[in-house]
C-alpha cells in the first residue's frame, strides 16, 4: 500500500473521531438547552424567580451535621443559622454557616466546623474558614453580624448550646475570639441574637435569646416506651429562662444590663428576635418569639427601662389565649402606613401570624385575609424575612419551613418533616402566595431552619440562603423584577452606630413615595446583608432620598442625585462617598 493511501485512511479516521466528538458535544448542548427551555417554559419563558444554585456551581460544599442520635436530644433539631456579611469589605457578600460541635451529649466522630465562604465575585465561593480563624467548635446555633466597635468591619456573635463566641474582625481577613474579654460568654443555650443600639449612644448593643434550661442531666425521655422510640421533646417539658441584654461599653467590653428589668423578669423559651421601633418614638424595641410560652414585646421606654407588653399588645398569645410555638420573627412596614408590623412563625396547626400595627402599641392579626394562615396551617416556620424581592417598592415575604420532629410522618397523615418554602408577593393591599409560580425549588421540601437575605451577585436583587438541618444549605439566586429599577444603599453612621441600625429611609420615584426603617435581626438564627435595596419599580430615576440618621445623631439629610441600579455608600454628615 502506498504512503498516500495509508495517510488518507489515518486522516479519515481522525476526521471521523472529530465528527463524532462534535456530534456528542452538539447533543449535550441540545440536551442542556432542552432542560433550560423546559425550565423556562415552566416559568413563562423566563428564568425562575428564585433559582437554586447547586454546590457544584457555587462551591459551597459545606453540609450541616445535625448530630441526630437515638436519644433525640433537643438541641439537635433546632439549628442551624447562617449569614450574609462582607467580612473583608470588598463590596461583595460572603457567607458564614454555623455547625454543631462537641458538647455533653455529642462527641463528633469526624471533624465538623462552621464555614466562612469568601465571595469570588463570579457566582462562586471559596472556603476560607481556617484562614479566617472562625471554625466555631461549640454546638453552634446561629449568628448575628454587627460592627460593634464602629471600625467599619463586621464582627460576629455565634450563639450555641453551650458558650457563645464573639468574633472580632481583625480587618485583615481574620477574626479573633474575644468572648471572655468582651464579657459576653453567656452560658446555657442561646439561639437568635441581634445587634442594635438601645440607648442611642452610637454603639451597637447585644440581645441574646435564651432558650430552655437543658443539659444531659436534664434530658427527658419523650417517646414510646414500648418500642423504645424517642421523639424530640416539646419544649414545654423544660424550664424557661431569661434572655440577656448587653450594653456596649465602647471599649470592647459589654455589661449585662437586663437585670432588674422586664427582660430579666420575662421567663421564656426564646428562639427569634427582631429589633424595630413599634411606636415610632426613636427607641428600638424588641419582638421575641418564644416556644410554648408567650411571645414578648419589649418596648424601650428609655433610660434603661423596658416594658414587656406582649399580652396587652395582642402579640403574646393566639386568638384563643394560648401560647404557641413561636420561632422565626420579622418586622417591616408591609402595608406602607409608616408603622412597623410584625410576623411570627409557629408550628403546624397553630398557623403563623401577621400582626398589623394599630398605631397605639397594639396589633391585629391579619394573617387570614393575606392568605398566610391557610398556607401555613400544616407548616412549621423558622427563617423568614420581609423584603422587596422584585424591586417594585413593596415589601414581600419569604418563609422557610420544616417540622422539628423527624418522626412526625409516623403519626400524622398530612404533616411532613421536610416542608416547602413559601413566597408571598405584596399586591399593595394584601399578600398573595406566589410560590407555585416562582421556580422549581418551591416544589421541593426542606428541613429548613435559618434564612439569610443578601445580594451576593450585586445585581440589585436580594438573594436567599436557606440553611437546612442535617443537610446542605440552599443558595437561591433572585432573577425577579428584571424590568424594575433599584437603588442600593450602604449607610455608614459617624455619630450614630456605624451600621446605621434605626435609620429611617424615605424616597420618591415616579409617583410613589415610600419609607423604610432599618431594622436589625429578624428571621431565625441568621443575619443579613447590611445594605438596603430600594425598589423603584419602573421609575428610572430617584426623585429624592431622605435619610434620618438614628440617635444620637437624629440628622436628616436629603439627596437628589443618587445613582440608580447600583450600590452607593452614604456617610452620615458627609454625603455620597466616592467609590
Amino acid at each position, binding site marked *: 500500500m502506498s504512503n498516500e493511501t495509508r495517510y488518507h485512511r489515518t486522516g479519515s479516521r481522525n476526521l471521523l473521531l472529530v465528527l463524532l466528538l462534535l456530534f456528542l458535544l452538539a447533543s449535550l448542548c441540545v440536551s442542556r438547552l432542552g432542560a433550560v427551555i423546559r425550565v423556562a417554559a415552566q416559568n413563562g419563558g423566563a428564568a425562575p424567580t428564585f433559582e437554586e444554585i447547586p454546590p457544584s456551581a457555587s462551591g459551597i460544599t459545606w453540609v450541616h451535621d445535625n448530630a441526630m442520635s437515638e436519644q433525640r436530644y433537643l438541641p439537635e433539631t433546632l439549628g442551624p443559622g447562617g449569614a450574609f456579611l462582607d467580612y473583608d469589605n470588598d463590596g461583595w457578600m460572603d457567607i458564614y454557616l454555623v455547625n454543631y460541635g462537641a458538647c455533653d451529649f455529642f462527641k463528633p466522630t469526624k471533624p465538623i466546623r462552621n464555614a466562612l465562604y469568601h465571595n469570588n465575585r463570579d457566582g462562586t465561593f471559596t472556603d476560607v474558614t481556617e484562614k479566617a480563624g472562625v471554625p466555631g467548635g461549640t454546638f453552634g446555633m446561629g449568628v448575628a453580624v454587627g460592627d460593634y466597635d464602629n471600625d467599619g468591619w463586621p464582627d460576629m456573635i455565634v450563639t450555641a448550646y453551650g458558650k457563645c463566641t464573639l468574633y472580632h474582625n481583625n480587618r485583615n481577613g481574620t477574626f479573633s475570639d474575644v468572648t471572655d474579654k468582651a464579657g459576653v460568654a453567656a452560658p446555657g443555650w442561646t439561639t437568635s441574637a441581634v445587634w442594635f443600639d438601645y440607648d442611642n449612644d452610637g454603639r451597637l448593643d447585644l440581645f441574646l435569646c435564651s432558650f430552655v434550661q437543658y443539659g444531659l442531666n436534664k434530658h427527658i425521655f419523650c417517646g414510646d*416506651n414500648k418500642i423504645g422510640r424517642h421523639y424530640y421533646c416539646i419544649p*414545654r417539658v423544660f424550664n424557661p429562662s431569661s434572655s440577656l441584654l448587653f450594653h456596649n461599653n465602647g471599649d470592647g467590653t459589654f455589661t449585662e444590663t437586663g437585670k432588674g428589668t422586664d427582660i430579666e423578669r*420575662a421567663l421564656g423559651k426564646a428562639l427569634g428576635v427582631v429589633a424595630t421601633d413599634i411606636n415610632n418614638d426613636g427607641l428600638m424595641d424588641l419582638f421575641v418569639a418564644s416556644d410554648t410560652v408567650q411571645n414578648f414585646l419589649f418596648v424601650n421606654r428609655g433610660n434603661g427601662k423596658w416594658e414587656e407588653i406582649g399580652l396587652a399588645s395582642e402579640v403574646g398569645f393566639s386568638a384563643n389565649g394560648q401560647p404557641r410555638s413561636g420561632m422565626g420573627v420579622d418586622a417591616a412596614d408591609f402595608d406602607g402606613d409608616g408603622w412597623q408590623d410584625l410576623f411570627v412563625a409557629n408550628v403546624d*396547626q397553630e398557623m403563623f401570624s401577621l400582626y398589623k400595627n394599630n398605631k397605639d402599641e397594639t396589633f391585629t392579626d391579619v394573617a387570614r385575609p393575606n392568605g398566610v394562615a*391557610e398556607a401555613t396551617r400544616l407548616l412549621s416556620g423558622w427563617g423568614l424575612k420581609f423584603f422587596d424581592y422584585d424591586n417594585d417598592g413593596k415589601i414581600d415575604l419569604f418563609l422557610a419551613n420544616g417540622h422539628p420532629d423527624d418522626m412526625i410522618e409516623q*403519626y400524622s397523615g*398530612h404533616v411532613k418533616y421536610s416542608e416547602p418554602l413559601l413566597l408571598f408577593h405584596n399586591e399593595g393591599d394584601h399578600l398573595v402566595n406566589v410560590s407555585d409560580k416562582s421556580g422549581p425549588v418551591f416544589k421541593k421540601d426542606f428541613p429548613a431552619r435559618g434564612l439569610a437575605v443578601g445580594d451576593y451577585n450585586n445585581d440589585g436583587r436580594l438573594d436567599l440562603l436557606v440553611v437546612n438541618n442535617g443537610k446542605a444549605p440552599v443558595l437561591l439566586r433572585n432573577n425577579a423584577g428584571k424590568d424594575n429599577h433599584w437603588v442600593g444603599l450602604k449607610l455608614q453612621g459617624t455619630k450614630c452606630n456605624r451600621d446605621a441600625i434605626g435609620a429611617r429611609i424615605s424616597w420618591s420615584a415616579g409617583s410613589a413615595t415610600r419609607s423604610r426603617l432599618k431594622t436589625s435581626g429578624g428571621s431565625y438564627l441568621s443575619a443579613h446583608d447590611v445594605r438596603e435595596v430600594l425598589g423603584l419599580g419602573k421609575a428610572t430615576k430617584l426623585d429624592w432620598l431622605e435619610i434620618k440618621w438614628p440617635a444620637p445623631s437624629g440628622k436628616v439629610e436629603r439627596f437628589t442625585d443618587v445613582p440608580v441600579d447600583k450600590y452607593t455608600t452614604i456617610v452620615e454628615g458627609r454625603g455620597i462617598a466616592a467609590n
Partner: protein
Amino acid sequence: MTATTAHFIVIFIAVFSLTLAAPAQQRRTAQRKQPASESGLNPQQQAAFNKLSQQADAAREGGRLDEAIQLYIQALQLNPKWKDGWWYVGSIFYDRDSYSDAREALRNVLGLDDKNGSAWALLGLCEFGLRNYDQALSDIQYARTLGNMSPSKEFVNVARYHAGILMTRAGQFELGYEALRDFAREGNESPSVIEALGLNILRMPFLPAEAPPDRRELILMAGRAAFYQAARRVQEAERAFKELLSRYPGVPNVHYAYGVYLLIDSPDAALDEFRRELQISPDNVPALLQIGFEYIKRNDFENARPYAQKAVDAAPNLFATHNALGRVLLELGKVGEAIKELEIGVKQAPDSPEMRFALAHAYARAGRKEDAARERAKFLELDKQKRTERSGPQSVGGIEAKPADKNPPR
C-alpha cells in the same frame, strides 16, 4: 393486728389529727409548719424514738406491716411531728385499702407540710377509695400543681390515671383526655387505659367501674381508637375509627369523636363529621362548638355565628358557648353584645383563663382600658395556675413577679 390495737391507732390518729389539721375546706391554707427535725425531745426520749423508728422501718422493709404500724404509732406518740412516720402509716393503710385510716394519717403529714405533693396525691387516692370523688379530684389535681410528687413513675402514673378518670366522670373530657393520652404514648395498652379512654372520647361521665355493662363493647372499641389516636398510630387509628363508625353509626358522640380525631389533619372532613353528629343529636353542644370554633379559626365569623348561637340556646349555662358567641359578635363589630356574652361567660367560669382573655380583648376593643388590664391580670394568674396543673410549673413562662409581689395569696 388485733381489733383493740387497730381501734387505739384510729383514735390516736384521729385525736392527733384534730390537734393539727385545719378544717377540710381550709386545709390547703394551713399555716402551721413544724420541721420534722424539731422533735423537742429530751435525750432519753430521743434515744427511744430513734430505736422505735428504726425498728418500724425494719419491720416495714421486712414486710411485717402489722408490726410496722404498731412501732410507727409508738414512735409517733413520742414524736408526733415525725412526718415520715405519718407518711408510712398512711401508705401502709392505703395499701391495705384502709382508706379512712390512711386519710387521717396523711392529714397529719399535711398538717406538718402542706406543700407535700405526694401526700396530697395519696390523700386524693384515699378519697377515691372512700368514693369522695370530687374531693379526690381536687386533691390529686392540687398535688399535680405542686409538681413535687414522688419521683416514682408508678406513683405518678397512678395519680395521673385517677385524675384522668375522675375528670371524665366530672365531665371535664378534654382535660381528662390530656391526662390519659400519655399512657397511650408510652405504649400502655392495658384494659384499664383502653376503657378509660373509651369512656372519655364517648363523653360518658362514668368511672370505669360505673360503666353500663351493655355498652362495654362500644367503650372498648372507642377506647382502642382513642388509644391509637393518642399513640399517633395513624393507620391503626383510622381503621379503628372506621370500625367503630360502622358498628355504632347512630350512637351519640361516635361521629363527634371521629371529628375530633380528623380536626388536626383534615378540618373539612372533621366539620362533616360534626354535622353528622348534629343529625343524630341536634343539640350536641360540643359538636356545635367545634364547628363554631373552627369557623372562628378561619375568620369566617358569619358562618360561625349560627352555630355559636345555637350552642348558647342549647346550653346557656355553659361558659364555652358564651365564649364562642362573644368572640363572633366582637369580630362582627357588635362590641356591646359581645361584652355582654363574655361577661356572662366569666360569671359562669370565673376561673377560666380563656374567658378572661376573651373579655380583656373585648374591653380593649371598646376602649375600656382599665377593665381590659384587670382581665388580663386575672388571665395571667389563672393561665399560670391551669398550665401548671396540666403540664407542670416548667410549662409556664411570662413575667415573673417582682420581689415585692412574690407569694401572692392563693
